[in-house]
């Protein structure tokens, strides 16, 4: 046996020893647990840490939040707050017409709901189209393909606050974009104080920041499509547009649905980068539901924790619906995969 091999064995044994020692200690109660509860009990044992974390950080706050939504007052301790039942929900839902925010008691909440609705529709559509185009391009044999994939994915790694700040510095009155416009002889424009351009900026920045993730999902889907289908289409002389509509799109549909649902959930929750970029302005034109909850719960001098909790419960219900949709889509994809 060579010296090197001996050293390797010794190193392996030295590293394994503490693990084996730990395992021997854990083994005793684990065996006893398995004897008492069977294999089902073992599953529960291994799931317990995760469920404990989920319970402490998600379930308990959710229940507490529900209690908060049934109380009023400015105090933060539940025992110091007065019980008002569903009053906060009634206040939020008190509207002459849900389409006209001016008729609503909590007009800012409904303004935020309307803004979020518009944002979701535009952003998800744009996100899907841009991610699809990017994935199609990155799936081709282009020069520096790996480099470009990294470039498009890089913004996903940035903190949303950094993303918001970078774009704020670019778009603000004395920002980089206006400097370029000025140097080209144009008239600088106040991008973040105009309602349309601020909304456009919010959507674009959000798409820029997250498209890399969705592109990756679509790219994986594109690479899973059998090449022989394309070869057969090429031999038949099928036009590229027809190849896309008849082969690529149908076979990519499961991935596309996942992308749409995930983007939808993310868009409903939009907050951080837009908050840093526009602060919800101009006026309230980029005030979204999550920012409303944050403002009314913590930031505003008019703070009202009960109202914020009620708003977050309502938003949570929307997210539950979307998550169920996502699960449904996932299951349908699985069933389709099994049939094939």
């Amino acid at each position: 046996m060579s010296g090197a091999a001996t050293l390797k064995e010794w190193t392996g044994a030295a590293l394994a020893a503490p693990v084996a020692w730990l395992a021997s200690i854990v083994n005793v109660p684990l065996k006893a647990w398995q004897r008492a509860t069977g294999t089902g009990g073992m599953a529960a044992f291994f799931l317990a840490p995760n469920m404990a974390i989920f319970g402490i950080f998600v379930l308990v706050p959710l229940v507490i939040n529900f209690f908060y939504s049934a109380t009023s007052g400015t105090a933060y301790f539940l025992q110091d707050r007065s019980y008002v039942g569903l009053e906060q929900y009634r206040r939020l839902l008190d509207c002459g017409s849900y389409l006209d925010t001016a008729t609503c008691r909590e007009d800012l909440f409904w303004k935020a709901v309307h803004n979020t609705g518009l944002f979701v529709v535009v952003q998800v559509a744009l996100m899907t189209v841009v991610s699809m185009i990017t994935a199609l391009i990155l799936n081709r044999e282009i020069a520096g393909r790996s480099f470009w994939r990294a470039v498009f994915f890089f913004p996903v790694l940035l903190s949303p606050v950094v993303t918001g700040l970078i774009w704020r510095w670019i778009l603000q009155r004395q920002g980089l974009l206006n400097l370029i416009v000025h140097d080209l002889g144009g008239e600088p424009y106040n991008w973040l104080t105009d309602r349309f351009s601020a909304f456009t900026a919010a959507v674009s920045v959000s798409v820029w920041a997250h498209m890399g993730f969705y592109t990756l999902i679509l790219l994986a889907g594109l690479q899973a499509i059998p090449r022989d289908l394309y070869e057969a289409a090429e031999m038949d002389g099928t036009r590229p547009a027809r190849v896309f509509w008849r082969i690529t799109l149908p076979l990519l549909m499961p991935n596309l649905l996942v992308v749409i649902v995930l983007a939808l959930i993310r868009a409903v929750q939009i907050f951080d980068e837009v908050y840093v970029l526009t602060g919800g302005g101009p006026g309230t034109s980029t005030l979204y539901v999550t920012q409303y909850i944050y403002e009314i719960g913590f930031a505003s001098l008019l703070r009202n924790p009960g109202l914020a909790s009620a708003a977050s419960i309502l938003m949570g219900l929307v997210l539950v619906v979307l998550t169920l949709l996502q699960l449904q889509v996932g299951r349908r994809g699985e069933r389709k995969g099994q049939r094939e």
Partner: protein
Amino acid sequence: MTKTRTLLAAMSVSLLASTSAFAGDVRIMWYSDGVEGDVIQDLLNRFMKDNPDIHVTLDNVAYKVIQEQLPIQLEAGQGPDIARVTNIKELAQHWLDLRPLLADPKYWDDNFADTLDWMRPDGSKAIPGFMTQLTLTGGFANKTLFEQAGVALPGDKATWDDWINAAAQVAKSQQLPAAFAIDRSGHRISGPNVSYGANYIGSDGKPAKVDDGTKAFVGKLVDWTAKGLMLKDTWVSAAGSTYRAAADDFINAQIPFYYSGSWQVANLSTKIGDSFDWVATGSPCGSAGCSGVKGGAALVAIKYTKNPKDVAKVMEYLAREDVVKEFSERTLFLPAHKGVVAKGGLKWVSTDKNVGPALDKFVKAAGEALPAADALPPWKWANAYFAALVTRVSQVMAGELTLDDAWGKIDQDIADKVAEAK
């Protein structure tokens, strides 16, 4: 077995040490507008040298943390031992009454009597702390820009219209983006509102409905914004009651006139340097007077402290006449200490020739504050009123509400806040 017990004991001690305050530890949550963070640290270093048994940690945080996170910590019965705050009255129930802990409470009553009511619950005789600075809202003009434009600076009794017209001429001549800006804050526009006859406080001490005085100035402000005379960015590019200062636009010579307050003097002096000359203007006049609103930052002891005696020692040191004097001279803040004010002779530590006259101007302007403005600092509902004003007025500026709709919304927002606090 003994080893295991020892290990467990050591771990328990470490855990306790990491979670509880040691006797002698005092934590201060502090924010800075200018250089006061460095000054207070220097003063505290001297204190710790003389009192080696007390260790003071100064946590320098953003103003946003004081405004948004500290109230939540306090509601949860937590927080630092001492904090520098501007939301003084509304959180008064969380301040520690230092009176029984102080060696000489009379010294505090004598020297801080005018402002103690600002920081204690109505009717209380507690001594929660002292004002680290007195502030007064007021304007600043870029003298160099006015001179370059050949426009004379409006005089002492000039109205808001006079100032905006003059600043508009300067902006046009010097091709600036706007004539003026006011910080995005309800506190800031309350001086002008009062100058036009506004009174926020009803006869029962509760918030009154928006009156003609407020309507008069806010109407002008909205009109000036629509005409591009007020820098749109400051008010329009945020939602809710978010605070936005326009100091950087003044410092970068983007606006010839800026309405903020005395606390900006050190900031302007440090950042402008000798780039241009600037002057403090006091508050322009309205139909009822030329009023700013007083205010300031208070250093208060928090009642959840584990070391009240040490906290009192630190507070006694920082409130000492010589310490307050030095702090004011070095930070360029107006002192709230009667003794320091009465003796006068403050030697402002600045080589900037703009600083002395600016501070003198604010001292003079303080005498012109109207009673309706002086009633605001100790008033419980002031912040609710300010927040509603900012939220709704900026919506009007953005074209989302009409002024008439905004008045109703402001009244409703404030009424909701009062109802919620019951």
